[in-house]
């Protein structure tokens, strides 16, 4: 089953198809609390069956946007369309969306069973059907044995699953997840990430998740919206966000990055030449239209920087000499901090593909760092 899901996932890209209609449309939405603008003229499209992540530091407006989708906050201006319906003025209890809360928000005075049945009872579903659906949800989250327990008789992971079952019981068109894994420990969190992904594929639902954890967003989401100060900085697939960030902010926010500032010396034929402030002549493949002398930066991920004892053949282009300043051994890979002549420290990581290396690189060694012409991204200032 997993294999077929993988192939669905690979071919799933409705955002790239101009003919497909967005399921959720956020149009120029602004939300102000007094003088504070939490969400600032934000527009987004989310498609059916998409796993969409809103990623950003706390206070960037991602939770406010989610709460506007759920109906707990009303936009100050702009509109939200869900499945062709304008959500303005529709209270949370009449929206075809359900939310899973960060605190789980389980009803403390009700058993697991009754927690899950609560939403169904509000809809006036007949009792036998409720019982059937509850049993089905309990099975889905593997909590059949805990039906009669109260929330305080459950562990954190079990509570999280009850919250999930409760929010899925009504088969909402969209499930909103507010930091759903924030309260779990690391190992359980990683397991649950994959469980959530499988569940989303199995049920064919649209998930919108809010998280500040970039790894979580990268693992689970089809697309990520990176947010800052109430605005969306970039919306793209995890790979695009990582390999082709559109700004310094995104490059710096997602993963580790080396940023080389400099000035453009030439830009033509899909190649940009930049002289960095440290004096390195860099040539980078890029279709950016840049004027000579314009300020620009090159962003290169640590794993795309090579370390060698000898100068590479293309030196001095895309290469610089330095000494090893720090070594961080992480097991699966090693991170080197190389201090260049001008004092700039560059991070380079290399995979530990074999168990032991003869004559490994040590502290204070003179080395060359280098990178290919397609290793980095040119960012306009």
């Amino acid at each position, binding site marked *: 089953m997993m294999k077929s899901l993988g192939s669905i996932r690979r071919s799933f890209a409705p955002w790239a198809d101009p003919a497909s209609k967005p399921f959720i449309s956020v149009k120029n939405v602004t939300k102000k609390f007094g003088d504070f603008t939490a969400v600032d003229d934000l527009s987004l499209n989310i498609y059916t069956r998409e796993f969409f992540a809103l990623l950003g530091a706390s206070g960037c407006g991602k939770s406010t946007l989610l709460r506007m989708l*759920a*109906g*707990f906050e009303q936009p100050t201006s702009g509109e939200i369309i869900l499945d062709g319906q304008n959500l303005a003025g529709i*209270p*949370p*209890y*009449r929206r075809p*969306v*359900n*939310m899973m*809360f*960060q*605190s789980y*928000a*389980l*009803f*403390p*005075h009700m058993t697991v069973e009754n927690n899950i049945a*609560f*939403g169904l009872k*509000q*809809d006036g579903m007949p009792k036998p059907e409720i019982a059937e659906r509850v049993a089905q949800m309990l099975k889905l989250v593997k909590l059949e044995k805990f039906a009669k*327990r*109260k929330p*305080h*008789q*459950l*562990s954190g*992971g*079990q509570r999280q699953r009850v919250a999930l079952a*409760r*929010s899925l019981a*009504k088969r909402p068109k969209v499930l909103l997840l507010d930091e759903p894994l924030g309260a779990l420990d690391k190992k359980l969190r990683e397991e649950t990430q994959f469980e959530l992904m499988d569940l989303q594929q199995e049920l064919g639902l649209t998930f919108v998740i809010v998280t500040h954890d970039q790894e979580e967003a990268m693992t689970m989401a089809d697309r990520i919206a990176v947010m800052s100060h109430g605005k969306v900085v970039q919306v793209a697939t995890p790979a695009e966000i990582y390999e082709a960030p559109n700004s310094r902010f995104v490059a710096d926010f997602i993963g580790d990055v080396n940023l080389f500032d400099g000035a453009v010396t030439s830009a033509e034929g899909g190649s940009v030449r930049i002289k960095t402030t440290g004096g390195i002549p860099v040539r980078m493949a890029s279709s950016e239209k840049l004027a000579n002398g314009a300020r620009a930066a090159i962003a290169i991920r640590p794993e795309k920087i090579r370390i060698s004892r000898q100068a590479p053949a293309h030196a001095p282009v895309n290469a610089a000499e330095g000494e090893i300043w720090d070594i961080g051994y992480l097991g699966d890979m090693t991170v080197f901090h190389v201090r260049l002549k001008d004092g700039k420290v560059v991070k380079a990581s290399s995979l530990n593909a074999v168990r032991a290396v003869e004559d490994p690189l040590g502290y204070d060694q003179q080395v060359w760092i280098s990178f290919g012409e397609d290793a980095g991204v040119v960012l306009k200032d």
Partner: protein
Amino acid sequence: MERWSRFNIASVVLGFGFLYLPIVLLVIFSFNESKLVTVWAGFSTKWYSQLWHNQGLLDAAWVTIRVGLLSATCATVLGTLAALALVRYSRFRGRVLFSGMVYAPLVMPEVITGLSLLLLFVAIGLDRGFWTITLAHITFTMCFVAVVVQSRLLSFDQSIEEAALDLGATPVRTFFAITLPVIAPAVFSGWVLAFTLSLDDLVISSFTTGPGATTLPMKIYSQVRLGVTPEINAICTIMIGIVALGVVVASILTKRREARREKDERAAFAAIG
């Protein structure tokens, strides 16, 4: 544990003596054979049986209980609503003023509360009696309920209400299905507090009473002015007994619930490990 030093023993004895000596004396003398309150003449329960023939005292007790039940119930409803408004709608204009005003009766001298209520009842031409006492008691016990319920609401996870709304419950249903059951213990404590306050209030009742509506504290007070009788001691002993019983039952219930909860939590964690 540390050994009891003489100083500790002395302070405990002094403290408890200070608090309970008068009460113990009262209880002892309620079993006094003699009609003279301060002269012991042997054990007897005759004053208790005589109580049942004192129609005046029984009437007063009945009025007190009715006022207490009615005013505590109304005060609980109003106080809970006030607490909800204060905690939930933290953004409304004039909230600070409003919250100050709700709590003012807590520190207001009872004489002033009583007098102002009397003036109000006279001004609007309300005949003084059972209903005016009840209204007055609602007024001054409401803020106590509001304080108790508010402190519970402050630690209340509001996202469970949002979850209920999100799952399709209207705000009214959310209140009755989620909010009220969760804060019920605090609401009940508020009710008990209001009932107790109403039960032993003398000052405000005296101001707002009318013919035919004498509460037990008023009755006792008026009788004491003519001299303390062992009968009074007896009825006071009964009141002490009722209050003590209430306190003990309430604390046992709380203890048990906590113990059960703790056991459940231990079981839950044992299940994970």
